[in-house]
Every structure is written in C-alpha cells, then in structure tokens.
C-alpha cells in the first residue's frame, strides 16, 4: 500500500514530464485530420475537425460530455463503421495514407491503430488467450513459442506480467478492474500497433488503479503514439504533451498541454479549464 501511495505521488509530480514544448512541436506528424464531420442519422456530431497528432507523444482530447471527443477518436480507427447510420466525411491520414480510402482494408488499419475502451472489456477467455487473440487472427506468431513470447512481452509492457504470471490460464474476467484495463492494453499492444487510442480508460477505475494506468501511459509513449480521451483535466495535464479542447462538436483550441492549461487563448477554453462550463 505504501508503495502504491508513492506511485500516486510520483505520478502527480510528473506533469508534462521530460518533454519541453518546442521538442514536441518538432516531432513528426503521425495522424493528420482535415475537416472531419460526422453525422449520426440527421444529427451532426462533429463540425470540421482539423488536427495533427504528433508521433510518440500523448495527445489528449478534453471537453464536457457529448462534445464529440469520443466520436472523433472512433473515427481514427473507423470504429464508427460498426454504428448503423453513422456517416464520416473529411480526410484522416495515417502516415500520409487516407484511412477512408475504399481500397484500404479496415482490418489492417485496426491492427495498426489499437484501441482501449472506457469499460475494461476482456473477452470471456483466459488471460493468455485474451492477449494471444490479436496476434492469432493476424498471423503474427509462427510457432507456439513465438506466441508465448508476444504474450509475455505484451503483458510486461502493460506492467501486468508480474501480477498474473502464475495464473495465465485463469479467466481474464476474474481480475480487478485496473488489472482488466491493463490486460486490455496488453491485448492492444500485442498486435504491434503504431497508435493506441484510449477512450476514457480510467473512468471506471479507482484512484490507485488510475495512477498505475497513467504511469503506464507515460512509459508507453516511448514506443507508441497515444491519443487519450479524458473527462479529467488533471489527467490530461498529467499524462499528455498535446491537448485539444472540444466543445459542442467543434475543436475549440489545441496546443501544447502546458500552454492550454496555463495560457489558453480562447475564452471557452478558459472557462472550461477554470471550471465554469462542463
């Protein structure tokens, strides 16, 4: 318990750790979105979103409920395709490639852009099978030992291996909420994605589990481009280097996290940060 408390403290101290603003702006652009609009049936949910997402950094989307931040996130790996009546217009490019190009295979796209959901959603299978599932369907492992290696290294990267190494064959649903969420992160990592999208990954977790996940996100940014949607401004401040503020389906302001929180240009952003709206 003492150790965990220490972790919480450490994470809170590490606001914007290690990366200065200019460094961040010099990073190559991984994802590029231009004029993205989304309609659900007759209702328009997003209005002309344009944003660049830098490589190997954490970008956070903040804003009040229903502002379109999750909708935009789900455009990036085309999860909106599974919703009946959803219509996405505009351009989204991953490394200069249009992800809505009809010639592009959505299955491959989702292997390159992993996703972690709001509520931990491990499959009703063993811990091992949960992580091994993605590599299996994409044929990433040639042999059983290959697969074992992928599973173990993914669990390690997700900081879960030590806790579950003796019970890999037990059901993933038997873990605690925080462990389940890290299992879902391991499951996403196992496919070897370049980008990981996280849709409010901590909203169903307690503060300690949240702190552990936040620390994990910080470690993961070494190897992955991360986009996180969050309700909590403190979380955005703690884990992200770039922040975008959404309101009523529009992108109001985006920039280096430190700037957004200390020196917002837009009045609405200011109000939200100060707690006057949302």
């Amino acid at each position, binding site marked *: 318990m003492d150790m965990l408390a220490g972790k919480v403290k450490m994470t809170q101290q590490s606001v914007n750790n290690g990366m200065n603003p200019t460094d961040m702006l010099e990073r190559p652009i991984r994802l590029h979105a231009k004029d993205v609009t989304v309609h659900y049936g007759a209702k328009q949910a997003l209005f002309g979103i344009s944003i660049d997402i830098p490589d190997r950094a954490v970008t956070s989307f903040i804003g009040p409920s229903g502002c379109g931040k999750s909708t935009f996130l789900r455009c990036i*790996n085309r*999860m909106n395709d*599974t919703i*009946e009546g959803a219509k996405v217009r505009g351009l989204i490019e991953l490394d200069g490639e249009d992800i809505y190009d009809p010639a592009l295979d959505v*299955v*491959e*796209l*989702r*292997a390159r852009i*992993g*996703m*972690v*959901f709001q*509520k931990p*959603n*491990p*499959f*009703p*299978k063993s811990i091992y099978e949960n992580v091994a*599932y*993605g590599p299996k*369907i*994409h044929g990433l492992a040639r042999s059983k030992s290959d697969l074992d290696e992928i599973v173990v290294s993914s669990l390690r990267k997700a900081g879960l291996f030590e806790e579950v190494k003796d019970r890999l064959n037990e*059901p993933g*649903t038997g873990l605690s909420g925080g462990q389940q969420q890290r299992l*879902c992160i391991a*499951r*996403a990592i196992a*496919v070897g994605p370049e980008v990981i999208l996280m849709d409010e990954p901590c909203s169903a977790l307690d503060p300690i589990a949240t702190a552990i996940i936040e620390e994990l996100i910080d470690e993961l940014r070494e190897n992955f481009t991360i986009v996180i949607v969050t309700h909590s401004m403190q979380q955005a401040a703690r884990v992200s280097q770039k922040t975008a503020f959404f309101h009523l389906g529009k992108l109001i302001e985006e920039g280096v996290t430190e700037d957004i929180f200390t020196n917002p240009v837009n009045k609405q952003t200011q109000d939200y940060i100060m707690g006057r709206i949302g």
Partner: protein
Amino acid sequence: MNSLIIAGLLVLLLGLAYQTGWSKSRSLVTPDGIKVHSRPQYHGALVAIWTLVPALLIVGLWANFGDSATRAFTVSQIPPDVIMGLDEIALNATIQRIGALASGYGVVGEVQPFEQAAGAALRQFQFLSFLLVVAAAAGTGILALLYARSRITARLRARNAVERVMNLALLACSGVAILTTVGIVASLLTEALRFFTFINPLDFFFGTVWAPKFSSTGTGDAGQYGILPLLSGTLMVAAIAMAVAVPVGLMTAIYLSQYAPRSVRAVVKPIIEILAGIPTIVYGFFALVTVGPFLNKAGAMIGLDISATSALTAGVVMGIMIIPFISSLSDDILNQVPLALRDGAYGLGATQSETIRNVLLPAALPGIVGAFLLAVSRAIGETMIVVLAAGNSPVLRGSPFEPVSTITVSIVNQLTGDTDFAGPQSLVGFALGLTLFVMTLLLNIVALYIVRRFREQYE
C-alpha cells in the same frame, strides 16, 4: 346465481372496509400534526384484509362441507323403510332425483310422493342454509371490520402488515404451480406403480419387444411391454430433429442478430415466429403429404429405400418446427452479449466473422446450449407429428429410413378408445408418461445448470 350473490357481497364488504380504514386514517391527521405511521391507503387495505379473511373463511368452509351437509339432510328426508330397500347406487340416484326436484329441473319417470316431499324440504333447507352462510359471512366480516377499525391508531404499522400479507399472497400463488407439479408427478407415479404390479420393471425398461395385447382378444395374455423400441424411436426422431434445427436455427440467429439490416430483420423475424405458431397437427399433414413422399422419391434417386412415413420424415419436420424456438432464443442471447466485447474484438482488427466465432459465440454459448436442451425436451415430448408421420411401427431398428414409433405415440395408442384403468394395457401409458417426464426433467435440469454455471463469464 348464489355464488354470484356471495361474490357481490364480498366485493361490497371489501369496498366498505377499505373506505372505513381510509377515512379513519385520514381523521387521525389533525392540524396540530400527529405523525401517522402509514399512509391512509395502507390502513384501508389492512381493514379490508381483516374483514375479508374471516368472511372468506366462512364461505370457504361452506364450499367444502356444504355438499356433505346437504346430502345428509336429503338422506334424513327419505323414509327409513325406503332406504332399507336401496343399495348404494340406487340411493345416489334417488338423492340426485331429489336434488333435481329441488332445483326445479324435473326428473325422468314418475315422481314418488316421498321424493316430492323431500324435494320441497331440500329446497327450503338450501334457501335457509344459503341465508345463514350469507348472514354469517357478512356478520363476521362486519365484526372484524369494527375490530380492525378500532385498532387503527397513528402508530399502527399498517404498511408493514399489508406488505407482509402481500408477500404471503404472492408466495401462495407460486405455491399453486409447485403443488400442481407435485400433483401431476404423484398421479403419474401411483398409476405407474400399479402398472408395475402387473409387469416387472426390468421387463419394461430393458425389454426389446413392444407388443401389448388388448383384453378383447380374449387370450388372457397381457402381451410384452419393452420400452426400448419406443425409446430408440424417440431418441432417433429427436436427434434427426436437432440435426436439422440446430444448424439452421443458429445460423438464422447469427444472421438476424449480426448481419441483417434493420429492414430485413423487421420482415424476417415475424415470419419465422409464425412458424412457431403453426399447430403441430398441421406440421403432421405437411410431413405426411409433402415431406414423406418427397424424401421417398429423393431416396429412390440415389438408390435408398426411404419409407414415406419414417423416423427421417418425422424428424425433419419436427426440426423445422423447432427452428424458430432455437433461432429466437439464440438471437436474444446473442443480443445480450455486451457491445463492449464486440467493440473490443473489432478494435483489435478482427473481422465480423472472427468476432462472431471467437468472441460472441463463446460468450453466448451457455445460453445457446440451454436453448438447445430446451428444444430437445420439446422434441422428445412432441406427439402429433410423430403420430402422423413416423409410421407407428414399434420395432427395434437402427435405420432412420424405416417406420418407428415413439413413447408419445404409444401413450396415445394405449390411452385412446374404450379403456378402463385396471389392466396393464392402459396403465402402461402412465409408466411411459413417467419415463418421458423424467427424461425431459433431467434435460431441463442440465440445461438450467449449464446456463447458471457459465452465466457470469462476461460480467
């Protein structure tokens, strides 16, 4: 007529009691603000219960013992010398004649003077006893009402008492279902045990020949009652039915729940459900007139000798009958799998069919297996299709292309027509019914166990 009057009286009492309790409770609330424990509705309900229960008890007592009292009175009205000359059957007939005279229906034959007199006396007795019951019920009810009313105070916990009574009433209702089950099992069991006094249970459960002889053949030989030919027929037909229904039903459910656009679903689902509403006897015609001859010709083309009425015919048609059962249950179960699981698989880049095969079906499997087992128990108990289409040939055979007979068909054969329940010829029906009941009961228990055991997997 009389019972209508009593029912009306009780309703009247009920309303009166409720109103009394309600207004008494209202009167407790005074401007100086006494806090009343329960709302007036609860006081009203409590007084109503207090009033109704004793009144109902008296009416119920009369309903139970009134008949024997009436009978005793009637007997007392018949002159002793007449009674001496009557045996029991004749006495019952006389009592019935008197009853008919009393109610003014008239009787066959000449009315004897003593019957006329007894009828008139009985009429008077019935009228008086009815008045007495009504008066007693109303009187007790009103006394109870007054007592209950006097007990209403601000601190009376009427709400808790009413809730407790409701609780008991609900318990009693569920008890009806349980008691009915127990009653059915008991009646099956006693008759089956009588059967086993004629036939050795070993010969019944392990006999391979089914050849019951009716007593009218006059040989005195009861015949042979081996259940195995029937059991094998039943299982064969059920297995064929499941082989047809499981793949078709499950695929239908997958299509409807995962692939079908809303517009298609809106049309297809009701049509499939119509299939479930067709009477089984109509399926029987269908089997006899269409499917049987078709299978016969199709078999002839590939050199198979398929009888038009066979296990195959009955099984295929029964399978068609079960399809909506399986598809609609499985559809519900697949739709209950949390959307988050589906999203999780898509998020990893799984295709739609991979998601269904590897995530949705395993998660839904316990429920689907439960649906299968419920369908099997329906197939085993199904009667009309096999009566018409299975060929009614209770011989132990291995081929599904030949006529068979099932347990249900044999029950129909043994229990229809002119039977008395004294010999093994008809009592065997109960033994067969008991066997069937135990089989389906075990299947249902296994199904429920599987559903419960694996249910929490995705919680």
